[in-house]
C-alpha cells in the first residue's frame, strides 16, 4: 500500500524526534548522577562567592558615597515588616475582644431592626483597609 508509506519528510521527522527523545533521556540520566550533583554544588558555591564579593564591593562604594544602599533599604523594609506584624496582632486581638463584647451583648439584647450583622460590618471595614 503505497499510500500508507510515510513520505521522506515524515520519515525524517520521525527519526529526528526519536533522536531528540534519546538525547533528552540521556540528559536526564546525566543530571540525575551523583557527580552532576557535586558539580552543581560546587558551581553554586562559586556563583554565591562571586555574588557576595560583588555585593560587598558595591555596598562599600555606595556607603563611601554617603548614599543609602541596598542594606539600608532592606533594614528599613524589615522594620516596616516587624511593625506590620505587631499591627496585625493588635488588630486580631481587637477583633477577638470585639467579638467577645458583641456576643455577650447579643445574649442580653436583640439587635436593632435593619442593623447590619456584626461580621458583615467588620468585613466591609477590613476589606477597604488595604
Amino acid at each position: 500500500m503505497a499510500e500508507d508509506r510515510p513520505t521522506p519528510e515524515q520519515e525524517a521527522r520521525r527519526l529526528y524526534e526519536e533522536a531528540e527523545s534519546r538525547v533528552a533521556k540521556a540528559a536526564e540520566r546525566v543530571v540525575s548522577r551523583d557527580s552532576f550533583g557535586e558539580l552543581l554544588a560546587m558551581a553554586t558555591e562559586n556563583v554565591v562567592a562571586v555574588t557576595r564579593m560583588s555585593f560587598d564591593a558595591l555596598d562599600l562604594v555606595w556607603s563611601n558615597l554617603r548614599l543609602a544602599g541596598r542594606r539600608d533599604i532592606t533594614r528599613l523594609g524589615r522594620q516596616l515588616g516587624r511593625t506590620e506584624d505587631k499591627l496585625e496582632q493588635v488588630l486580631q486581638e481587637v477583633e477577638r475582644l470585639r467579638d467577645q463584647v458583641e456576643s455577650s451583648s447579643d445574649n442580653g439584647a436583640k439587635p436593632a431592626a435593619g442593623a447590619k450583622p456584626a461580621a458583615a460590618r467588620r468585613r466591609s471595614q477590613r476589606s477597604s483597609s488595604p
Partner: protein
Amino acid sequence: MNALERMARTPIAALEFANILLTERDTQIAVTPKDVVWTHRTTTLYRYRSTQRTYPVPVLLVFALINRPDIFDLRPGNSFVEFLLDEGYDVFLLDWGVPDEADADLGLEHYVCDEIPSGLREVSRASGQEEATLLGWCIGGTLSLLHCALEPGTAVRNLVLLTTPIDTTGSLYATWVARDSFDVDRVADVYGAVPGGTVDWANKLMKPVTNYWTTRRRLWQQVLDGEARPEAYQAMAKWVADNPPFPGRAYREWITWMYKENRLVRGLMRMRGRRADVSAVQQNLLVVTAGADHIAPREGTLPVLDQVGSADVTHLDRPGGHIGLMAGSKARKDVWPHIAEWLGERSDA
C-alpha cells in the same frame, strides 16, 4: 501539505513563531475577577466574585513559594478557579506575593503558623462559615499539611494535596541539594531572597532538553503545521517565566528540613516548639498525584496516606506532570471533575 507548500509557508511560520515568543509577556493570565479580603506583609487573601454559591464550605487555595498562584486561574476556559466557581464553590486564594530581601527573615513557620491560620480566619469572617476546605499545591500542599498537623483543632474540614512533596528520599532534588557540599546557609545568607530565576533554572535543569529545546521545537512544528494554539502556549510560558524570590530563611528551612533531614516523614518537623504530627491530621483528605511528576514524585507523596489519622482518605492518581496534571489540556476532563465531585460530597452545611 507538500514539500513545496511547506517551503512557501516557512517564512510566514517563522514570523508567527517569533510573534508568539515575543508577545508572550503581553498575554493576560489570572483574569477571573476577585476582591482583596485581607493583606499582611507580602501575603494577600483574595475572594473570587461569584453569583452562584451552592456549597457553603469555602475553598482556600494555597500555592507554592516558587512561581505565582496564577496557575490556579491560568486563562479563561482553562482555569481551575473558574471551574470551581461554575460548580458553585466560594473560592479564596492565599497569594504569597513577591518577597524581597526585606522578607529574608520569613521562615516556613511564618507561612504555616501565621499566614495560613490568619487566612482561614479571614475566610471564615468573610464567608460566615466556620469550616473551610484547604487545597494546597506542591509546597503549598506541604504547608497546608503542616498547618493541619500542628493545629488539630483548626477550622479545616477537607484537606486536598496536589502533587505535594512529603518524603524526599531518592528524589532528584535530594540528589542535588541534600549533599553536604551544597551549602544552603551560604546561599540564603548571600541572597537574602533567593532569586526566583535560580529556582526556575534548577527546575528546568531536571529535564534540560525537554524544557530548553523540545517545548519550543514542538511549538515551531505546530506553527508550521498550522495547528498552534498561541493563547495556550503563551499563558503557560508567561506563568513559567514569572518567578518570585524565595525568602532566604524559608529556603534554608525547606532545603534543610525537607531534603537534607527529611523531617516531615520522619516525624521530626517542629515549629514554634511544637511537633508537626502528621498522625494528628483528622481532616477528610484527598491526595492527588501525577504519574510523571519529576518534581514531587508520586512515591514521595504516598507515605502521607498511611501516616495521617484521617478516617476519610482518597487517593487520585493520574498520568501527567507536576503542573500539567492540573493545568494541562486534559485536566478539565480528567482531574478537576473528580476533585469537584470529592469536594461536593464533603462540602454541605
